[in-house]
């Protein structure tokens, strides 16, 4: 789903770069069949899977509080409730009227003459942000999500979520078994705490950056999943953590509590904003790292940017920010493909190095993307080793400056 966010950012950025000022986010089309809510197409038609007519929606990248999704902002800032930095989330946007079932994809006027109210609805995978100041991963089953925190008492705590990043029902959490393994090799059982609100392992104090791996089975019969965590410091909990609990098996989002005075709760999982509609493009507040950069014109500039992206990937991995790795990886891949167009200028012996190296780089970028969200440090580190080796080979044959180009 991060790819969806990336796509939205890309589209909005492209429009912004073209000097236009879009009034509405672009239309997407979803399947409304239960269980297929995350089906998204770019044109109208029928669902390929169930044949139902697709429903048009508008997806928007907004900024919200990490644990108070009712707060909707159009640019980065701090949460008005707990003061934490806002995080980016993908939501469906529509327009509604008070006390009505109207759900329009364009703003308009209500039967009583008042302007329609903008409404945001969560989408599956729309929120991959930590809710408790920890590190957030998605499990390989594409449905479970989890967050690990390392608290000042030497306690590793794991929160479990569904695909809407809503806490799992406690009976689901109580079925889970797992352990945490520290770098010393010691293993600590993960046990349900507070009747299954989360899992905990008392691992004691670990020097920072604190590295540990969690091995978790969602059910006794399911395979064991591996997640690597690197905590730069103790995780800091928000002042008012979310307390809602999803129903077992529910894929529907729940409303969040304690909405501020200027925001009213609408249907479950939706937020209506009574203030003036946000009309400025959300991309204005987009993380610059998410905006695809234009490819430079010269080979030395491409090489320089490739080097920067490689360092950025390394930093993300070192920080344990695996889910961010795909952004510089894809940018690097695009740079490598642009370099591929220039390889005809190379000497024959360098050409033999360049072609395979660029291909290895492209494949490794896709590997980094594939492993980025899973949270297995060994896999992503090995993928990075392949990536870095390919970059090194590319750098060895393409001139780093115009002077060397003319050698």
């Amino acid at each position, binding site marked *: *789903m*991060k*790819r*969806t966010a*990336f*796509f939205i950012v*890309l589209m909005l950025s492209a429009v912004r770069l073209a000097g236009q000022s879009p009034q509405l986010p672009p239309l*997407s089309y979803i*399947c409304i069949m239960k269980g*297929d809510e*995350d*089906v*998204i*197409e*770019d*044109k109208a038609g029928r*669902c*390929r*899977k169930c044949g139902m007519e697709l429903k048009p929606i508008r997806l928007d990248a907004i900024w919200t509080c990490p644990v108070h999704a009712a707060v909707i902002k159009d640019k980065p800032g701090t949460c008005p409730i707990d003061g934490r930095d806002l995080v980016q989330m993908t939501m469906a946007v529509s327009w509604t009227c008070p006390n009505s079932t109207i759900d329009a994809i364009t703003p308009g006027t209500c039967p009583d003459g008042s302007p329609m109210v903008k409404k945001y609805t969560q989408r599956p*995978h729309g929120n991959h942000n930590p809710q408790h100041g920890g590190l957030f991963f*998605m499990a*390989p*089953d*594409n*449905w479970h999500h989890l967050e690990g925190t390392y608290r000042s008492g030497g306690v590793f705590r794991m929160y479990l979520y569904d695909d809407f990043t809503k806490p799992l029902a406690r009976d689901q959490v109580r079925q889970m078994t797992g352990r945490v393994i520290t770098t010393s090799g010691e293993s600590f059982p993960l046990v349900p705490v507070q009747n299954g609100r989360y899992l905990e392992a008392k691992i004691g104090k670990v020097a920072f950056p604190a590295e540990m*791996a969690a*091995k978790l089975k969602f059910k006794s019969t399911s*395979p*064991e*999943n*591996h997640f*690597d965590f690197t905590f730069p410091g103790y995780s800091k909990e928000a002042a008012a953590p979310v307390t809602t609990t999803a129903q077992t098996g529910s894929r529907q989002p729940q409303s969040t509590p304690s909405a501020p005075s200027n925001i009213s709760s609408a249907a479950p999982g939706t937020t209506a904003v009574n203030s003036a509609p946000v009309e400025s493009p959300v991309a204005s507040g987009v993380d610059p790292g998410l905006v695809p950069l234009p490819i430079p014109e010269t080979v030395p500039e491409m090489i320089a940017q490739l080097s920067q992206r490689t360092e950025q990937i390394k930093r993300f991995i070192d920080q344990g920010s695996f889910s961010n790795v795909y952004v510089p990886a894809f940018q690097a*891949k695009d740079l*490598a*493909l642009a370099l*591929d167009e220039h390889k005809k200028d190379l000497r024959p012996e360098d050409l*033999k*190095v360049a*072609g*395979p*190296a*660029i*291909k*290895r*780089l*492209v*494949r490794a970028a*896709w*590997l980094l993307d*594939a*492993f980025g*969200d*899973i949270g*297995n440090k*060994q*896999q992503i580190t*090995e*993928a990075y080793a*392949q990536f870095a080796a390919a970059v090194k*080979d590319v750098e060895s044959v393409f001139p780093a400056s115009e002077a060397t180009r003319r050698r």
Partner: protein
Amino acid sequence: MKTRRLLAVAAAVAVAAALTSRHGEAHKAVTSKYTFNDDVFPIVKERCAPCHVEHGVAPMSLTTYKDAFPWAESIRAELIAGHMPPWNAEEGFGDLKHPRTLTAKELDVILTWATGGNPQGNLDETLPAVTLKNDWAMGPPDLALKLPSEFAVPADKMDATGEFTLPTGTKEARWVRAVDLLPGTPSVVRSAVIYLKGAAGSASTGASPDRILALWVPGHDVEPLDGRVAFRLPAGAELGVRVHFKKTWQFEGQPVSDRSTVGVYFASEREAQELLAVPIVSPPPAADTTFTFTRTIDEDVQALAVRPDEVPPNITVQMTALLPDGSRAPMIKLNTRPDWSRRYWFEKPIALPRGSRIEVVANLENPDILSEAFGSVGSTPKPAVTAPPLKLAINVVPAKTKLVGW
């Protein structure tokens, strides 16, 4: 068999899930700027269709949008894993003829399409039909030898190996520039080894006439010798043919039979240099995950090809020539897989003066990082790997042999 199929499906799902993480659903947002009609189809038609076509040996056709898009996640997994196209030699190490690979751009186009919502493109466009091509790549052979009998893979088996003997009926010795195979039922013929029966090599020189005439895999054209270098077929020779038959899931529970034909192409030259083979055999593998062994070349030769004869799947084998002047000539680096054993021809002959050593570095630890994704084993230590000796061979001719077309 149902269990096996379920396991296969489960494994495929596990791989797809592990690889795709958030992309496990069949439907995804369309983020791909590449469409099937405009961008993917031309690549598939050129690179994949020899096998991934209706009635082909691959378990699915990819030649229409309807055929291809349900397999997008599988395509993604196979491409990222480096399993497809099935060319096991790593690019950039050594210089091989006619590598069957995708370009970086092609790889990116297909992956972008496979992960980015699989857009079809213009719905009104009709793509040209792609049909199975099952014909002799070099034209009709000089000698077509049908397997002596129909071989049936029974309903309750998914694969089987057939051993056949084919009398050539030749009255005199002939030089052979290529041997090929034409499947009778292309969907079930997975690989074949065609060899000369009863031929003995010369043990004194270390390089003996090559008995392996062809390592056939589907979808890959035969590489003919130039005629001045050839295989020697003695008068009245018999060919041994070992065929691996493998059914795809569509034929589960059904008997499938095949009667393939072996094609022999004679060289026009009256005299030729016989293609020789130098076996490269490892000592029993050491306990280490990576071990090195060498084979000294005791005469002046030039290497034309290499083939893995007996190597376990899913390992890395790197072969380098250590020349007497101290220089190193990379030959090949293989990521081995079952069922895709072939002969790899060097783009240019590699001169191996007497005293050269062929160094083989074998990594018996599974080097494929995606194996970690299969079972979520994380950093769990791998079990010890044991393997029989590795057997490879290089094809050589004497250094003085004049080569044409290399």
